[in-house]
């Protein structure tokens, strides 16, 4: 227990550091928050304008349903995207700050280091998502009267675990390719956005993209979130969406960690664990 407490204390160092950095970079945090709110609102207004754009008469209940459909996608994606980006930037950020050698020389096990960064990321992703949802509801009527909050929270947690694993794996890219590793992680994220049905059902995608959508955990999380928040689906009903995302999480976290540790060893052999790229 004492050892675990000690490791939690070490992990907390990274949470505290990230919160302190967020305070110091408050202007940039504000930019990302405003950007998130504006993006989500824009998507909601596209939904509200659907009848006018399509030229048809649409039932107001259907419009409301459509708006919520879009909002669930955009906010859930924002949550998962922040997790993927922040964890994926673990190396790149330290390199940019010039602290990478100090952090990797410290007597903190890599698992503890990454757990701490994941904790800080979950705090940030949750704060951003709640703030965006709150801000959007000030402008757009959002009907959550049928929502099953428990199902939605469970799905988000399962999705968070899956994206933590994928983020850890992609965080190792800048250790392999010091110049282009981070760009590669962003490309992976963009492809996941495209194929995961964030703004549309995956059925509209070409066959090969639909095949890719089956391996993206976001596909299941977002589809399940919609069923939970629009139709009030319970966890038993949502199991077909939960287990694939859970499986990705259960596999990706240990595999991501293993990959990261192996890549760190490679970086130490080849001199890639350094301040500059």
């Amino acid at each position, binding site marked *: 227990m004492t050892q675990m407490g000690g490791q939690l*204390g070490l992990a907390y160092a990274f949470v505290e*550091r990230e919160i302190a950095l967020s305070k110091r970079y408050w202007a940039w945090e504000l930019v990302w928050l405003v950007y998130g709110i504006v993006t989500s609102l824009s998507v909601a207004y596209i939904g509200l304008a659907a009848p006018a754009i399509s030229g048809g008469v649409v039932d107001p209940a259907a419009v409301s349903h459509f708006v919520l459909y879009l909002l669930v996608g955009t906010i859930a994606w924002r949550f998962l995207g922040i997790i993927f980006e922040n964890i994926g930037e673990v190396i790149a950020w330290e390199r940019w*700050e010039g602290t990478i050698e100090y952090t990797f020389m*410290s*007597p903190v096990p890599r698992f503890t280091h990454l757990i701490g960064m994941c904790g800080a990321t979950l705090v940030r992703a949750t704060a951003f998502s709640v703030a965006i949802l709150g801000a959007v509801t000030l402008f757009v009527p959002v009907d959550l009267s049928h929502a099953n909050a428990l199902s939605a929270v469970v799905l988000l947690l399962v999705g968070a675990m899956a994206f933590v694993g994928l983020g850890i794996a992609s965080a190792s890219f800048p250790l392999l390719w010091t110049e282009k590793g981070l760009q590669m992680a962003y490309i992976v994220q963009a492809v996941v956005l495209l194929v995961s049905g964030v703004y549309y059902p995956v059925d509209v995608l070409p066959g090969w993209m639909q095949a890719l959508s089956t391996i993206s955990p976001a596909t299941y999380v977002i589809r399940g979130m919609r069923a939970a928040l629009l139709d009030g689906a319970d966890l038993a009903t949502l199991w077909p969406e939960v287990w694939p995302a859970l499986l990705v999480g259960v596999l990706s976290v240990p595999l991501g960690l293993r990959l990261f540790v192996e890549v760190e060893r490679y970086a130490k052999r*080849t001199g890639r664990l350094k301040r500059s790229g």
Partner: protein
Amino acid sequence: MATLTATRPEVIRTPGRDALVARAVTKTFKSSREGVRRAVNDVSLRVMRGEIYGLLGANGSGKSTLIRMFSTLLTPDEGEVRVFGLDIRADEDAVKRLINRVSVEASFFKKLSAMENLVYAGRLYGVAPDESRAKALVILRRLGVDIDRLNEPLEKLSRGMQQKVAIARAFLTAPTLLLLDEPTTGLDIRSKREVQTFVRDLRDEHDATIVLTTHDLDEAERLSDRIGILHDGRLVAEGTADELRARHGATALEDVFMSVTGRRLDEADAVAEDKTK
């Protein structure tokens, strides 16, 4: 290896008191621009507990590569490094708890204050925040740092102050082996003297062993019990300053350097700079 004498014979001559032992250490880097470059070539050295060992060499001589291997950031291609009997590869976590390093770059989170950086560093080494703050104040006062500025973002402090905070950070964790990689490069004369006096005082007051890299002949002689001269990745001479002068019939360390490398130190630095252009 040269016979050891010294300023502190009781420490140096006691068997089994090796702080750092490097045996036939070699490190080669490959790059598309430079091809294969042997940065450290078959270096063997032994540093005794409580000793200040100066590694003197021009830019590009392999000093920093050697220090990065000692600090577990680089894996040797060949040879063995032991810190207090622990192998840096097999016992990496234990070694990390015994060492700390001050690099030529200050390596801080620039937007965080000096105190925030110090508290964070303390946490990584299991030092409680209150203890970190108290110890940091004592060390920084001795280094002549203006205590009123400790809550300002580090980027607003001068290079000299940043480097003093870096030294305070290293001593905060009470390392048994301290690796100082050109700690006074870029400092003004006064700051340089303050840092040198502090390093000497702390070694005398605490049970710390220090490996210092420098390309400042005066600093090497002023601080080091023994000096090793690195040239093109090889340890070409080793001994106390007096021994080195006597062995090479020289009156100054500069002449010793000239005798063993064929160049003056500033000429060797210029050659190294030309190679990097």
